């Protein structure tokens, strides 16, 4: 049996090992591959750039720790961008395991920019049934969130005193790993007319391009690639940025090349195996004819 014929029988753990090597090695030797930006990522970046100091963006942490590898850099990028431009930020965490993780990310970013809770940002926390929460914000923030995450009544929070509903905010950015992103488009955008942008996992991205094409959202960050593009734009604008997603894209590119190689080699192996089976079948038929 030739090498090509052995490929289909290759232990899958060899593939895992190769994927692991391709993930680890570029971390030590960054390649600095270029990261061209796309229109959908520029859409969100430019929108926040155009907001003046004192504008308000609602950042929704609609993901759990499972997808922090993708959604974490997206949320961090948007939060830092808002703080950098003195845009006020309201934060919700409508995914069940998000509140603690969101709190840590918010407090880290706020400390970096000397932002004060209740003045520059307000963390509203979690409430169940995201679609109902999103709808009721359209009437008043105080219906789903009578208090903020820390238990302070909203009317006692300086930033929230004049905030009633979507009319008082400029943009919603849903950083999501599930269907909650769609609820923001359906209710906040289509029902209440608030501009919405989405930062979603790559798995979801393909289906949400329809929202982008139909101009239902002002921007779309697809997975780690979107986060890397956003951080690259922040870097280009001279802002503080995190290079984790930028370094990650080096690995991503190498991994994709490796997977393409797996597909090509796997197919070559498949056809080699099929040719061998055909040869053997032909030989067996010839042998049977010889016996007769």
């Amino acid at each position, binding site marked *: 049996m030739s090498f090509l014929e052995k490929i289909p029988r290759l232990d899958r*753990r060899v593939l*895992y090992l190769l*994927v692991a090597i391709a*993930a*680890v090695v570029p*971390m*030590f030797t960054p390649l600095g591959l270029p990261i061209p930006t796309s229109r959908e990522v520029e859409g969100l970046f430019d929108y926040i750039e155009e907001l003046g100091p004192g504008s308000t963006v609602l950042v929704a942490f609609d993901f*759990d720790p*499972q*997808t*922090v*590898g*993708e959604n*974490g850099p997206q949320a961090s990028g948007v939060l830092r961008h808002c703080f950098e431009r003195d845009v006020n930020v309201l934060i919700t965490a409508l995914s*069940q*395991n998000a*509140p*603690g993780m969101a709190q840590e990310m918010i407090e880290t970013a706020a400390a970096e920019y000397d932002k004060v809770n209740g003045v520059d940002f307000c963390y509203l926390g*979690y*409430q*169940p049934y995201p*679609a*109902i929460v999103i*709808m009721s914000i359209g009437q008043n923030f105080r219906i789903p969130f*009578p*208090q903020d*995450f820390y*238990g302070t009544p909203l009317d006692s929070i300086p930033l929230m005193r004049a905030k009633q509903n979507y009319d008082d905010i400029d943009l919603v950015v849903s950083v999501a790993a599930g269907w909650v992103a769609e609820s923001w*488009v*359906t209710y906040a*955008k*289509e*029902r209440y007319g608030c501009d919405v942008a989405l930062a979603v*996992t*790559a*798995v979801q*991205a*393909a*289906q949400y391009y*329809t*929202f982008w*094409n*139909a*101009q*239902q959202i002002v921007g779309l960050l*697809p*997975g*780690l*690639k979107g986060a890397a593009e956003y951080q690259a734009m922040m870097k280009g604008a001279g802002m503080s*940025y*995190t*290079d*984790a997603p930028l*370094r*990650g894209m080096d*690995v*991503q590119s190498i*991994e*994709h090349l490796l*997977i393409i190689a797996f597909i090509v080699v796997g197919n070559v192996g498949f056809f080699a195996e099929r040719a061998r089976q055909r040869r053997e079948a032909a030989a067996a038929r010839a042998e049977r004819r010889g016996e007769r």
Partner: protein
Amino acid sequence: MNGEFIPHTVAALFTLAIFSFLWKDNPLYKAAESLAVGLSAGYFTVILIRTSLMRTLIDPLFEEGQVLVIIPGILGLLMYLRLTRRWTWISRYPLAFYMGIASGAALSPTILAYVVRQIEYTIVPMGFGSWEGITNILIVVMVFCSLFYFFFSVPHKGVFGGVSRIGIWVIMVAFGAQFGFTVMARISLLIGRVQFLLGDWLGLIHLE
């Protein structure tokens, strides 16, 4: 050693325990998986009690004297009658109430978001004079062919078969894009974990 070393070590060991499944199923993996499920459920329960039950029912009722919150409170409690055999029928009333409100509130914006807007942006200026015009022709043709693939009132033969075949190709391209994004997503999650293990835990790489 900084204050984060111990929690990072615990997180790293559990990450490695989950990765051990790639070699083969083992008790370490099972333990890590069970712990993740248990912790997640426990955390969610505490968050739910603290932020929802206490702040929207118990506190308004007993501290602020808002008597009207008793009504949704009772409706919520009636849901639990599903757990009894004799009174299970009562649980249908709050459920009907909930479904009625949810469907009524969702119907109009959902049709607007998923149907009307999508149709609106399929009615686009077409032409061969510009790249945008050509792209718009492709969009219209592909939408038409994809929809026709699901039209079963005529046999998919001859011209109809050709249109339907283009439709399935378009759908396959969409599936391919979806699969490509899925691969990218899975690799992204691996990258996140590798950066955590090498950077936050071992300190072998420095990320700004």
